[in-house]
């Protein structure tokens, strides 16, 4: 019964707040003598999450805490509540943001060297105004360029609990993988039916254990 109470208070608070609440904030809601432990709160949150299984709303942990949010699958329909389209961000802005997110702390010139174009100051300004990006320090080189990093608001906005939640970066293929191809003409001189001398390069092609007959 007490557990039900904790669960309901937590759910009520999440709904009343309309913003993410941390475990510490949730604990503060209870009288000192009736305050649930962190584990108790996590359990309550787990129950809330389970209760919302299959519903329009889900519990999600983001950087600032837990929040109840509309499931993204209904986003298309729900967004029609508002006549204006949600803001679209340019590729330049998203690429700049991606570099800051994955490579933080990063200077403007480092962003430039990866993108091959100079950083548009308006983009950085927009990112800062949205409070997604902030100056986290200065690199100790001449000119002391600003080091940019992402904020908690950025994680909240994109529904991430921490930076590890970012989509994984693509693997870099090494140039060395190319070398087998260079000797291919030699291999081609082999006769039909022989086992290929080279491991296949295409990922879906059979590996060295290709059929021998």
């Amino acid at each position: 019964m007490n557990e039900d109470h904790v669960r309901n208070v937590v759910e009520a608070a999440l709904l009343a707040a309309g913003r993410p609440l941390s475990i510490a904030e949730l604990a503060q809601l209870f009288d000192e003598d009736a305050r649930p432990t962190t584990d108790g709160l996590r359990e309550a949150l787990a129950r809330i999450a389970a209760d919302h299984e299959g519903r329009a709303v889900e519990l999600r942990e983001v950087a600032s805490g837990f929040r109840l949010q509309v499931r993204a699958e209904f986003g298309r329909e729900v967004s029609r509540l508002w006549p204006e389209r949600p803001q679209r961000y340019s590729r330049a802005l998203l690429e700049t943001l991606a570099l800051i997110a994955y490579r933080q702390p990063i200077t403007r010139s480092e962003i430039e060297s990866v993108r091959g174009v100079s950083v548009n100051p308006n983009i950085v300004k927009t990112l800062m105004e949205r409070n997604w990006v902030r100056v986290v320090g200065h690199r100790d080189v001449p000119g002391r360029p600003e080091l940019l990093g992402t904020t908690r608001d950025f994680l909240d906005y994109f529904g991430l609990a921490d930076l590890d939640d970012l989509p994984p970066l693509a693997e870099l293929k090494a140039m060395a993988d190319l070398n087998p191809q260079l000797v291919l003409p030699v291999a081609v001189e082999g006769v039909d039916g022989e086992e290929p001398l080279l491991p296949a390069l295409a990922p879906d092609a059979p590996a060295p254990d290709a059929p021998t007959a």
Partner: protein
Amino acid sequence: MTRPHLSIVPKPAEDATAGEGPSLPIEGNLPLQAEMPFAVVQGEPLTQLPRDLYIPPQALEVFLEAFEGPLDLLLYLIRRQNLDILDIPLADITRQYMDYIGMMNELQLELAGEYLVMAATLAEIKSRMLLPRSAEATTDEADPRAELVRRLQEYERYKQAAESIDHLPRLERDTWVASAPSDVYRPVSSLPKVSLQEMIVAFREVVARAQMFAHHHVQRERLSVRARMTDILATVEGDGFAEFTRLFRAEEGRMGVTVTFMAILELVREGLLDLVQTEVYGPLHVRRANRPPVRAVPDLPAEGAAAAVAAGSVEDDTIAPLPDGLDDDDLDDDLDHEDEGIA
């Protein structure tokens, strides 16, 4: 399971003809060249010529501006032809790249210097590849394209990462924080409307107080409403709130407080300030308005009020030139008082 590698064997003849096609360079004839003949793409035989090597200029115009830079353009050229990024046919790509650059020039698109640097880089790599290399060097000496490939891959990584970020469910686009706010727990904060009368009453108090300071030193300086507006905004900037009466410096005398009052009215009219009252008959507060400029206090006839308050001493109904319009008599009055006070 088929054996794709074996199917390469009968192809060379066909590929050779393909290599002589009008739009394709014959790279394969140079034995030590690192570029592959068109026979093999990612270990797969190429059965037909790519048909999309040419883009009509009209189409170009549309998306030339869409490129995020030379790397993006280069990547596009490579991907469009399904070429392996690790094995770029440089001569071909360089030529296409230069076609685009020429096109950009023709269309008088502002060509960023980065594009030209890349063109030079491509030509430089190509020329280095044409130099013969000794047999043993082919393995351990770095491919001249390596640095370019590294940059392209690095850029493509973050380009894809940017797309992934764009696909993340995002607040206000894909998801919204659920809330069921209950007014029961919220303090009711319906602020009373501030009427012009109340403002005038408050102002009158200030004026009354100002008169008590009539003998104090008055700076003989032009009091500009504009400058005062800036001062007031700066005052409100910090904590966001200021008590109405505290914005006035009674020492400035009647003219000073009038200018301040005009400045407040003007700021309210421009929607930069809000006047709020936490309770009926409570003290007036001035707050920096956050919303877009709308008339913060409806029905507030700013000019009229100003004229009324300044008791006929202001003829102009424009605000800016007021200090001049605010006749010198007032100032002189004050100065006279001052003189008396000193004497």
